[in-house]
C-alpha cells in the first residue's frame, strides 16, 4: 500500500495516501468500529443489569477468591 516509490519527493507518506477512496474506507471502518463498540457495551450492560436483578451471576464460572458479598 505504499504511495511512494522513493523518498525524494516530500509530502504525505502514509498508507493509502495516493487514494482518497481507500482513506475514506479506513475512516468509515474506524467509525463503524466505534459504533459497534458502543452497541456491544449497551448489550453487555443490559445483560449485566438483568443478571444482577435476577440474582444470577453476571459471568459463568466459579466465584473469584476474595469476591466480596453482595452489597
Amino acid at each position, binding site marked *: 500500500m505504499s504511495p511512494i516509490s522513493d523518498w525524494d519527493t516530500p509530502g504525505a507518506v502514509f498508507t493509502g495516501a495516493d487514494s482518497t477512496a481507500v482513506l475514506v474506507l479506513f475512516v468509515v471502518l474506524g467509525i463503524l468500529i466505534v459504533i459497534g463498540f458502543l452497541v456491544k*457495551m*449497551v448489550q453487555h*450492560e443490559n445483560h449485566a443489569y438483568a443478571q444482577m*436483578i435476577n440474582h444470577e451471576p453476571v459471568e459463568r464460572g466459579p466465584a473469584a*477468591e476474595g469476591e466480596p458479598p453482595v*452489597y
Partner: protein
Amino acid sequence: MSPEDTLASMESVITDLFYWVSIALMIAIHAGFLAYEVGASRSKNVLAAAMKNLLTFAVVVSTFFFFGWWFYYAFPQFPAGALDVSGAKDYLPWADISGPNTTSVNGIFWGAFALFAATTGSIMSGAVLERIRTSAFLILTTVLGSVVWIIAAAWSWHGNGWLLTEWGWHDFGAAGCVHLIAGAFTLGVLINLGPRIGRFVNGKAVTIPPHNLPLTMLGLMLIFVGFFGFLMGCVVYTNTGYFSIFGNPTNLSAIAFSTLMGLAGGIIGAYVASKGEPFWTISGGLAGVISVAPGMDLYHPALAFIIAVVGGSLIPHIGKLIERFGIDDVVGAVTVHGGCAFYGIVVSGFVLWGYPNIEGMPDVNPLGQIGGAIVLTLLGFVPGYLISLALKKAKMLRIPPEVELAGLDLSEVPATPYPEGIPVTRLNGSMNGTAVKEEVNA
C-alpha cells in the same frame, strides 16, 4: 543545506517537540481525573469510575480524529459568517496532512487539541458518577468532546473566531471553550440524570462521602501537573517567539506567574470559604487557575492571586446553590469548571477593558466578554440537556436502581477492586432506612 533551510528545519523540530511535551503533560490531567473520581466514588463503584475515564480517552481521541478536527477549521465565522468548507477540507481525516507527512507537523497540533477534547469529557465524568450508564456517558462525551467543544474553540479560541473578530473576545487559557462549555453541558446532563439514590432524602441533601479522599487529593495534584501541559498548549510557538492563540505576543514566563499565583490564591480562598474542608480546598486550586485563565497572559501576578482567591472562595457557595436545586454534582464539576470559568471571563472583561487586539479587531471589553460567556454557556447547555433528555426517554441514560444500590463493580465490571474487602462503604443511618426504599420504589 542553506542557513534558511536549517532554520526552517529546526523550527519544525522545536514546534514538534514543544507540543509533544504538552501532550505528554496533559495525559497527567487524565491520570488525575481517574484518581480523583475513583477516590470520590464509594468502594462499590471504583472500577466502574476508572473504566469510564479510560474509555472516555479512547472514544474522544478516536472520534476527534474521525470528525472533530474538521469543525475547528470550518466553524470560526459560522453563523456570523459563512461556513468555511473549502478551507477545512485540508483537515479532513483523509487529507494529505492528516497522517505521516514529511513536510507537515499537523499531527502534533491535532494531538494537543485531542487532549483538550478528552479533558472536556473528563470534566463531565466526575459529575455523573455512580448512576449513569457508561454507554450513555460515552455517547454524551463524544458529542461534547468531538463536536461541541471544538465548535466553541472555533468561535472563541481561534485567530479568526467570530467572538474575536466581532466582539473583541480574549480568553488565553480556554476558560470558555473548555471549562465553561464542559460545565454547562454537564449541568444539562445532570438535570435529566437526577441525583444518586440517597443523596436527597425527603428533599434534604445528605452528604455521601468519598471512599478515599486522599486519593482524590492526589488526583487533583496530578491535574495541577497536567495544567502546565494544558497551558503550554495554549501558547502558539513559532521561530519568532510565542503568541497567544489570538495573535498577541506572550511567553511561558507570563503563564508561570499566573498559573502558580492562581493555584495558590484558589486554594487559600477555598480553604477560608469552606472552613478547611479538604475536598473544596484542593478543588480551590483548580478554581483559581480557571478563574485567571482568560487573562493569565496579561494579569499582574498579585491581581491574578486576588482574582483566584475570590474564585476559590466562591465554589463552596456555588456548590450549595446547585445542591438546593436537587442537583447531585459529585465532584463539583459544574461549580468549579462552569462557575469559575463564567466568573473569570466576566472579571476579565472589566480588568482587561481596553487591551488592543491585533489587526484592527475590537478591543477587549466587558460586553464582548459577558456576551461571549452567555453564548458559550448556551452552546454547552442546550445539547447536553437535549441529548441526555433523549437518552432518558429511551431509558438509556441511567442504571437500574437495584444495580445502583449494589454498585456497578458487582455488575458490569468483571473484576474486584479490593479483593481483601477493605475499605467498606459506610452506610449512613438514613440510607438504610425506609426513606431510601421509598425513593427506589417511587
